[in-house]
């Protein structure tokens, strides 16, 4: 397999949606501790909308590259919230990186992590250490770039991203939130994992899981 077609890309996003849905209570609890408890719901609702829109688009026989802006718009229109614009921008940025007329080369899939990071940073204007999802996406993006430079394959790149994102998520415990809803907590946000960083790790893990499944399915 050299390219992911629209159906395969949709399958990947379906796994993301599934894993986010499973974690939704846990994400809600993390958000409850320092925010307003809706992060699990908003993420689950957003990715469910992404999958619905992608299934529909894939049925119309579009290329995988065209799914990304569709995913972005559907996320945005489904949830609003803080995550709506952030993940919409993430998908739209990825859409700019891939050709809408083409399927997505498997080797380049990990670049989605870099695009997500850039889109979120651009829209949210958070800086590292602000205790946001960017503290997971940032390290993950750098890990992908480095792994690619070292010639790692796509799954290995996502492995590296996952490890870096997990460390980033844990690092948010020691951060005092300074943007987003938790920013008003000051010191009281200390010790808590940022929910957005936690969901970022789940997304990356699901992308890796989905890609490995697809490649394995092909190998067997």
């Amino acid at each position, binding site marked *: 397999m050299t390219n992911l077609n629209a159906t395969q890309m949709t399958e990947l996003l379906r796994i993301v949606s599934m894993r986010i849905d499973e974690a939704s*209570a846990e994400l*809600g*609890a993390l958000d*409850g*501790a*320092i*925010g*307003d*408890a*809706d992060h*699990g*719901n*908003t993420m689950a*609702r957003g990715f469910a909308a992404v999958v619905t829109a992608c299934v529909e688009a894939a049925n119309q026989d579009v290329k995988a590259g065209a799914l990304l802006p569709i995913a972005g718009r559907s996320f*945005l*229109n*489904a*949830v*609003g*919230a*803080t*995550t*709506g*614009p*952030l993940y*919409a921008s993430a998908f739209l940025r990825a859409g700019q990186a891939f050709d809408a007329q083409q399927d997505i080369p498997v080797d380049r899939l990990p670049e989605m992590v870099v695009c997500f990071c850039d889109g979120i940073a651009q*829209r*949210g204007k958070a800086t590292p250490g602000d205790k946001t999802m960017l503290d997971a996406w940032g390290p993950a993006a750098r890990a992908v770039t480095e792994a690619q430079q070292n010639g790692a394959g796509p799954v290995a790149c996502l492995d590296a991203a996952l490890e870096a994102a997990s460390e980033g998520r844990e690092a948010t415990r020691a951060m005092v939130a300074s*943007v*987003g*809803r*938790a*920013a*008003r*907590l*000051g010191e*009281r946000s200390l010790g808590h994992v940022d929910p957005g960083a936690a969901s970022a790790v789940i997304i990356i893990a699901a992308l890796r899981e989905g890609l490995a499944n697809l490649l394995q399915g092909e190998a067997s």
Partner: protein
Amino acid sequence: MQRFINDPDNLVDETVAGFVRAHSDLVRLDPENDRVVVSTTAPRPGRVGIVTGGGSGHEPAFIGYTGRNLVDATAVGELFSSPTAKSFADAIRAADGGKGVAVLYGNYAGDNMNVKMAKEMVAPDGIEVVTVVANDDVCSAPLSEREKRRGVAGEIFMWKIGGAKAALGGSLTEVQAAAQKAIDACRSVGVGLGPCTLPAVGHPNFSIEAGTMEVGIGHHGEPGVRVEKLASADAVADDMLKIVLDDHGLEDGAEVAVLVSGLGATPVNELYVLYSRIETRLQAQGIRVHKAFVGNYFTSLEMIGATLTVMALDSELKELLDMAAEAPGMSTGK
């Protein structure tokens, strides 16, 4: 969870449906977007349109302030989640009477981003859009970083003033300036005695131990600045007023509007107990209450607790506040 719920995922849609049916004399649903509630008086040709929006679960806010001489169109979000950029954009379109639209909303990351995107979305329609961001919640950041503070019940005064100014035919700049002046003149604080539960989550967001209270709590349950032993109503009123007045710096002889809102599960009579003490203390400091609002004006599902908002008045704000307005959540003036 002792609540009247069907599928939690439909709660917002069902709320909006019931709302527009119950108040069909004052509001209607946008035919293009069922997450946008529009005043039956909107759009008002030749008048500036007023838009707001925010997460659900604060009823009567936000939708309840859609009405005559108040908000023209309101974007509705999920429970405690900002409305989508598209809903804000559709609300702007619905409110547009050709003189531009002022979006008056609260300072939350999601709302900031979604309103910004909505502005981009309506640019092709040629609608001029200005924004005013409410940041009246004193405990959410120091005064020196006021731009970081959350918007809470002071938004109601901002809508009232902005809506009145627009009704009087103020230009977009004038409406923006009046709404900005209103929110600049507002200070709010919340005290929480009990948590609330998002139905889809199924258990409380956070906990407040029996016998304690959380001072400075946000109206989604964002933790406050102090957890203390539950005090008497008078002591709580004094504490709230001190937080607000220390930040406000009002002079002897000042006139104010006061809003004491329940958070959803505090008996209404206790809000009057708080108010009585607050007015007594204001008077003792030479501050006159020109108008008071006491009730469940801006709630947080079934949170136990109350918020206090004090708006300093000058003659312009007084006149705009006193102007008649009629909406499901507030009917005031003659």
